[in-house]
C-alpha cells in the first residue's frame, strides 16, 4: 500500500514547471523569488520520496542542505530587492536595464 514513486515525480515536475513559468512570466521581483522557492520545494519532494523508497537517509540530509541554501538565498535576494527599490523605487523587473548593453 505504498504510493509509487512516479506519482511523487509527477507532482514534483508539476511544481517545478510552475516555478519555471513563474520565473519567466512574472514582472514582480518578489514573485520571481517565490517561484524560485517553488522550484526548491519541488526538488525537496523528490529527495524525500527517493529517500523513503530507497531507505537511505542521504536524501533527507540533502534536503537539510537545500534548506540552508534557500535561507541564504532568501536573505541575499531580499537585501538585493531592498537595494533595488531604494535606487529606483520600483520592483518591476522591466525597469532595471542597467546591465543591458
Amino acid at each position, binding site marked *: 500500500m505504498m504510493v509509487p514513486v512516479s506519482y511523487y515525480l509527477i507532482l514534483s515536475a508539476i*511544481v517545478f514547471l510552475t516555478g519555471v*513559468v513563474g520565473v519567466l512570466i512574472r514582472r514582480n521581483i*518578489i514573485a520571481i523569488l*517565490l517561484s524560485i522557492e517553488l522550484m526548491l520545494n519541488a526538488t525537496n519532494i523528490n529527495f524525500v520520496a527517493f529517500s523513503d523508497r530507497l*531507505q537511505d537517509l542521504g536524501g533527507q540530509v540533502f534536503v537539510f*542542505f537545500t*534548506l540552508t541554501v534557500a535561507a541564504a538565498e532568501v536573505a541575499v535576494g531580499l537585501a538585493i530587492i*531592498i537595494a533595488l527599490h531604494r*535606487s529606483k523605487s520600483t520592483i*518591476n523587473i522591466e525597469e532595471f536595464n542597467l546591465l543591458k548593453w
Partner: protein
Amino acid sequence: MAYMFFGYFAGIIAITAILVVALRNPVYSALSLLVMFFHVAGLYITLHAEFLAAVQVIIYGGAILVLYLFVVMLLNVNRDDRYHSQWRVAAFVCIPLSIEFLVLLSGGIGSAHRAPASLSVEPYISNNTLAIGKMLFSTYLFPFEVASLILLVAMIGAIVLAKRDIGENNAKHMTRAPGAR
C-alpha cells in the same frame, strides 16, 4: 489510505503552486506559498521524514515566509503587476518543457513499479531525528560546516547590501555613476 493522503496533499500542493504564480497581489502569493509549505510538510510526514516536516514548518513557514511578507509590506507593492512583456519568449521555453514532461509521463509510468535496488543500508531507524543527526555529524560533517559558512556569508552579504550608508562616507569623494541613487 496512503493514496487518499497523497491525493489530498498533492492536489493542494499543485493548486497552491499554480496560485503562487497566478495571483497578482504578492501578499496573496506569499500566503498561498505558506499553505503549500504546510502541505509539503504533511507529505513529508507520510514519507516518514518527521524531522524534515518540523524543519519545513519552522524554517520555511516561520522564517522565510515572514521575511517575504516583511519585505512585501515594507516596499508596499500591490499594483502594476501584469505579466512580463517577454511572455512570448517564456512560452517558447515553457512549451517544449511541458511537451517533454508529457512525453516522460506517458513513457515512464510502468517502469517505476520495480522494487528498489538492493542497497547495503542498515534497517530504517525508527527515530528519524536521531538517524539524521548521526548521519549529519559523521558522513556529512564537512558539508555541514560548509553550510554554516554559507549562512555566515549570506548574513554579512545581506547586511552590507541592505544597509544604506556603509561606505557612504568613503565613497562620497569618488565619482558616482549617473544611475546611482
